[in-house]
């Protein structure tokens, strides 16, 4: 095996550290351009945080990321992912249940949705059109930037100046009023933003949800309007903002990427943890595995977050001090937990009409923005939210292949849950207590829920870090705050996927445009590599 590896290694062009979706996307593009690429994965399975796993009987869990929308359509097309088994099925709805009974349902049918909103507020039903139009306008403005290298505003290099001019042009193209809207939108809090449209608490609460998912901010923190947008930027079959399930779980995405990669001649080695990225005279020369094996290649591309990459896999002496200082300053905060639950049957939610499609999408039980903000206050004090915001789905309703007949799988994303607790490290008892908090929250809205639970996997940020290797279990590989976006992501002056070491690149969500199963960082990193090699993308 070692010999064989060494043999292939002798003729490698590039090594990619980590088989997460971004690592695989980068690998695919490079392999398709004729490079000999080896992907190394620490776990015995590929996928990083986009995996489907059987942890209990025949139940398949999407046990980290759980829904699909942001994955760039151009990536799906170019890499022929459908051919390799990727099939995304859109949600049929969504809902937020209210504390005292009652609910707000969301339907993909626009008229139905307007009727539903007007049940809560006629004015908000009117405002909804203005709201979705404005949000979509912002999406249209930002989308083209996702697949581009952010310019360095401090540089006078033609490329950077050109790119800055491009941004300036696009911005100017919005027209005066829209430019102001954009300036405000990028810097506002979700709460203030929603207040400018809606009056009904439940409507505001429902839309505010996506402004806090994965972030260590509350809905009243400036900048969360952008996070809300970040979750809108995807589309399924050209339905902008739509979300869906990957058939067979999120692992289907990385499995398809892996298959596409191998079909274009790439090699994947799992259970091959990289312990060090090797550097000689300021140049990356390959990697060393935990078992001491060394694999050489002129290009090393890291899918790990910047802290793992530069603080844990490299020698400080090989990196500039200022760069290291900035990497240490990069905020990667654990703020979310996850429960994966095997159910003996479909839970009943009395506040939702029997058979309503709105349970076949994302369900929530936080009906005011104040509840979310208070949940955040708990996190600030180093404890999990006593009344957490949860994003709960039952994919098995739409994809029965995930469970045995008649059974169901529920994915519960939980905001907020700290990486470090004020009262000392995580342990089994605290993990269970956290899980119970979430289960009880759901049980308040579903009388038969607890009796249906066959198995529950409880994952704190600490667990996610240890299994997936995401620092603090942060799902975006770094906060999506103004100081960590565009040319600041991950580090000012190093936002163009190139590390300060020649031959080394970053392709994880720590880089622009950030997290969510989007694939853009991987594609952009590959483009940067190919440009440096003088090859077309």
């Amino acid at each position, binding site marked *: 095996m070692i010999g064989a590896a060494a043999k292939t290694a002798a003729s490698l062009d590039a090594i990619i550290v980590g088989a997460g979706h971004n690592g695989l996307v980068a690998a695919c593009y490079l392999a398709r351009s004729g490079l000999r690429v080896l992907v190394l994965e620490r776990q015995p399975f590929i996928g990083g945080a986009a995996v489907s796993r059987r942890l209990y009987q025949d139940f398949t869990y999407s046990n980290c990321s759980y829904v699909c929308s942001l994955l760039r359509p151009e990536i799906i097309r170019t890499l022929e992912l459908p051919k390799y088994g990727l099939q995304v099925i859109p949600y049929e709805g969504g809902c937020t249940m209210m504390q005292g009974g009652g609910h707000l349902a969301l339907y993909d049918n626009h008229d139905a949705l307007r009727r539903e909103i007007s049940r809560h507020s006629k004015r908000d039903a009117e405002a909804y059109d203005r709201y979705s139009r404005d949000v979509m306008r912002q999406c249209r403005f930002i989308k083209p930037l996702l697949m581009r290298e952010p310019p360095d*505003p*401090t540089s006078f290099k033609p490329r950077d100046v050109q790119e800055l001019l491009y941004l300036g042009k696009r911005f*100017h193209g*919005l*027209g*005066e*009023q829209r*430019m*102001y809207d954009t*300036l*405000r939108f*990028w*810097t*506002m809090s979700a709460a*203030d933003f929603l*207040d*400018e449209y809606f009056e009904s608490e439940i409507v505001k609460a429902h839309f505010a949800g996506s402004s806090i998912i994965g972030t260590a*901010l509350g809905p*009243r*923190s*400036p*900048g969360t309007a952008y996070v809300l947008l970040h979750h809108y930027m995807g589309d399924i079959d050209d339905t902008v903002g739509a979300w869906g399930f990957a058939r067979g779980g999120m692992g289907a995405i990385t499995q398809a990427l892996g298959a596409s990669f191998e079909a274009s001649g790439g090699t994947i080695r799992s259970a091959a943890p990289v312990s060090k990225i090797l550097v000689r005279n300021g140049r990356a020369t390959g990697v060393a595995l935990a078992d001491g094996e060394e694999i050489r290649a002129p290009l090393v591309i890291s899918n790990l977050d910047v802290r793992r990459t530069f603080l844990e896999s490299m020698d400080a002496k090989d990196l500039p001090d*200022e760069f290291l200082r*900035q990497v240490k*300053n990069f*905020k990667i905060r654990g703020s979310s937990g996850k429960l994966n639950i095997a159910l003996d049957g479909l839970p009943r939610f009395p506040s939702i009409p029997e058979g309503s499609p709105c349970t076949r999408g994302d369900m929530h039980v936080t009906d005011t923005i*104040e509840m979310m*903000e*208070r949940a955040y*206050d708990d996190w*600030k004090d180093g404890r999990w939210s006593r009344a957490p915001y949860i994003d709960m789905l039952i994919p098995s309703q739409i994809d029965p292949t995930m469970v045995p007949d008649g059974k169901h799988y529920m994915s519960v994303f939980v905001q907020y849950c700290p990486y470090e607790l004020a009262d000392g490290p995580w342990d089994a008892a605290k993990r269970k207590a956290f899980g119970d908090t979430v289960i009880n929250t759901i049980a308040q809205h579903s009388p038969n829920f607890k009796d249906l639970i066959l198995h529950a996997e409880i994952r704190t940020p600490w667990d996610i870090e240890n299994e997936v290797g995401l620092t603090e279990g942060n799902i975006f590989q770094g906060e999506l*705050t*103004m*100081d960590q976006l565009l*040319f*600041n992501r991950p580090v*000012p*002056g190093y936002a163009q996927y190139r590390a300060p070491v020649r031959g080394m690149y970053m392709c994880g969500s720590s880089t622009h445009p950030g997290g969510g199963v989007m694939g853009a960082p991987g594609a952009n990193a590959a483009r940067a590599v190919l440009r440096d090699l003088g090859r077309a993308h």
Partner: protein
Amino acid sequence: MTIASTQARFDCVIIGAGHNGLVCAATLARGGRTVLVLEAAAQVGGAAVTREFVPGFRVSAGAHLLHLMPAELLRTLKLESHGLEWSARAMSTTALVPGGARLSLGAEEALRGLSPEDAEAYSVYAARMRRFAAALVPMFSGVPPRLGTTAWGDRMALLRLGWQVRKLGKRDMRELLRIGGMNVYDLLEENFHSAALKGALGLDAVLGANFGPRSPGTVLTLLYRLAGECGAGASGLSQPKGGLGAVCDALAKAAAAAGATIRTGAPVASIRVEGDRASGVVLESGESIDALSVISSADPKTTFLRLLGPRHLDTGFVRRVNHIRSRGLAAKLHLALNRVPVFSGVSEAGLRGRLLLAPSLQHIERAYNHAKYGEFSSAPVMEITVPTANDPSLAPAGQHVLSAIVQYAPYALKEGWQSGRQRCIDAALDGLERYAPGLRASIVGAELLTPADMEAEFGMTGGHWHHGDLAFDQFLMVRPVPGAAQYRTPLDGLFLCGAGCHPGGGVMGIAGRNAAQEVLKANPNSP
């Protein structure tokens, strides 16, 4: 509206004799315009006023320190020759630390009470922030450019902004672009260990702001303050003789000397519109006054919604005005004391400076948590001055006044200020007593000005010092609202000159000066 005007026609009528209104008046009068200033209250000053709050005890009712008004403005308007004197300049700042330890941040005795490591980091940090502040001065003191116009002035202004930042050099520019959108909590955590130091530096970022230290945008509010102080010149925190009211008295004299007329006790009821332009104002007395230009130092909501009226504006603009966030969270506590207050560990010199009660960033953040839900802080943070330590004339001989900005105290208190007031005072006194044992016993009278009180007394919507939150989405070319950020409004002949405009509040006077210059530009060759 139809009452015939008996008055002579003025070039400019200014609504409100706050510091911005008066700066604007003086500047216009010096520019050769005939100017009338109309003030609702019986005296000039607006929220920069000195008044009695307990028989024999006087205090600066609003702002209690002067540190943002450009030295060059004081010179041009010759305020010192119009009677402005100083009882203290370059005042020190002392952080109150539990257990009577002390941390002084005053220029002369800098860094006392810091670990060598923090002291080192502080000098690096302070120097860098000073460089950033200096680079931002032009941005904070100039007229914000309009976006999307083809006017060369606007384009040049944008380029100048860019150039000011670019001039910092690669490394500083990158750092500024990084921290510019950050929260002050992270910035200080990146730099320091001492909780007291972080608390003290963090408090300056949230004073008067609708933010806690963890709110992104608080580095901006801090830079706003630092750039203001940098633009103000070397004299630092200052206390005018006779309180802040003395500044406005001098401004009024300067305006009058330049030929402006000032009428107090003359509340404006409405702005008159004829043929799609402002043509004057009508007083509550019914008296009507003609003017070529009407300049309002009132806050934008009062100006557009109450004095002008939505029917003269298009709905989009009115919606934006309605969305201005202008609910204050800062209260003012005034104590009349029968002896000098003794803060443990604070020297007499320290008492003549500014005292900060913000033991840690967490403490400030927790205090802010309450405000988010319409409660006042159970353990508020404070900026404290003892004006009588520098200016005995404010109280009977041997007695003293304590003036404190108390945060957070939201405008719309859930339980209502009727029942909340005394409990809020008690919360503040509990905090003070911890650092100044025995203070309670020396109190002969107390007054709490909540944001609701300030709205009533000074006519600022929401009782907000800045006439609107200082935040990225209400800043520069979007302050107070897009389309009115250059002191002109959609209505010809109507201008804004108050704190609601760029750059915002604090006794600064820049908005008033900039507005005056825009008015002079708008009709250069008027009589």
